[in-house]
């Protein structure tokens, strides 16, 4: 009797946003875990680094992400130690091959009507070129310079498309991502202001410690403070 796990997502993460800049790939995600509408946990990383070379981020069901990471880490270890070629050469998992492997996994699960309920983001730097790709729960893959899952697709993508250039510096890329994350914090009910940034370049693959966005200029417009619910207002909105 086959095991069936998928019913509906229970504990979830929201958007992951990423872009390719001059020299690498930058990803951003908040560290909130939601339990329906409740904020369950505030400091949960949704991006991990695999074999110190590849970044894997996810939105959607957290337990499925944990299972995927477990399998991928085992795969990375096997690649380094047990593959035929590893006897002769130093081999590590590459971002593109991980992306392709996950495509196969996601598609197979979906075909058995038991998907991993995630949108996955894979990022890396190999053959002197950055790599950034997504896989959804149906097994659809996209390789792009700009990616965003969940609400990010509606709110962050337009900002990314507006501001992106192929020669963005790291500082500009970071500012652009923070701007996207701020908009998501304002407008996504399942987002928080505590985010992590992750970077992969030719020489580095790191994930920052979680930090809180600076939204001090987001609440001080006079139109926001105005008491529209009072008798001299329009009755509240």
């Amino acid at each position: 009797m086959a095991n069936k796990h998928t019913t509906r997502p229970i504990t979830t993460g929201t958007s992951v946003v990423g872009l390719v800049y001059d020299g690498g790939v930058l990803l951003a995600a908040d560290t909130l875990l939601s339990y329906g509408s409740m904020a369950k946990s505030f400091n949960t990383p949704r991006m991990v680094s695999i074999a110190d070379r590849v970044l894997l981020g996810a939105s959607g069901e957290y337990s499925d992400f944990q299972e995927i990471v477990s399998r991928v880490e085992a795969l990375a270890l096997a690649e380094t130690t047990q593959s035929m070629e590893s006897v002769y050469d130093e081999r590590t998992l590459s971002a593109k091959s991980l992306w392709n492997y996950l495509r196969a996994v996601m598609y197979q699960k979906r075909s058995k009507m038991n998907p991993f309920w995630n949108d996955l983001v894979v990022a890396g730097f190999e053959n002197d070129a950055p790599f950034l790709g997504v896989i959804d729960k149906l097994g659809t893959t996209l390789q792009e310079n700009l990616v965003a899952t969940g609400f990010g697709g509606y709110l962050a993508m337009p900002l990314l498309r507006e501001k992106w250039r192929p020669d963005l510096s790291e500082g500009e890329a970071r500012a652009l991502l923070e701007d996207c994350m701020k908009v998501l914090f304002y407008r996504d009910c399942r987002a928080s202001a505590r985010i992590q940034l992750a970077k992969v370049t030719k020489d580095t693959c790191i994930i920052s410690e979680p930090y809180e966005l600076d939204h001090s200029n987001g609440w001080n417009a006079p139109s926001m403070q105005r008491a529209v619910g009072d008798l001299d207002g329009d009755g509240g909105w």
Partner: protein
Amino acid sequence: MSQKNREGEVLTGTTILALPFEGGVVVCADSRTSTGTYVANRVSDKLVQLSDYIYCCRSGSAADTQALTDYVHYYLSQWSLDTGRIPTVKTAAHLMRRLIYQNKDQLQAGVIVAGWDPVHGGSVYTITLGGSCLELPFATGGSGSIFIAGLLDAEFSNGMDMAEARNLAKKACSHAMCRDGSSGGVIRTVVISADGVDRDYTPGNDLPFGPVAVW
């Protein structure tokens, strides 16, 4: 009872509360209005003035509560003209209750009616989805209220002064906003007493707690 959400309906999600103190009441609300998981308005004003000394905190369907408060505001001004008096909080609450009860199948509205009148001083009434009207020592409502039931049980006391009541209201509201995905934004409070009405605005980056818990 109430019908299912109509598709695309705008709900207030919400954390609302009303805490009486010595001489009046303080009403407090978050400012998030959501359509599904999209924040339609992140700086809403959920504290509606029904008359000079009576306020209503709205939760549930934004359209339903706006329509209800419009009616009650209208009826209360008629009542003042007819009687020559300022309305009591009890009158306002029971007017609201009647409208909600008689239209319970069509409405999705949970409100707190609170204010000051010269007859009873400060009072707080909560009116639930079905139209039950309860006078309470203090009241909370909306999806965020479940997260602060324990906090307020522990920290509320009768006979607080105005500043204590306001601070406790903001503290409780910010804790609810931290945990409830349907609450957030800024905190608005109104202190109502014999001296009149005093509004306060706490921006979203200056909350007593949150917006993210830091452990």
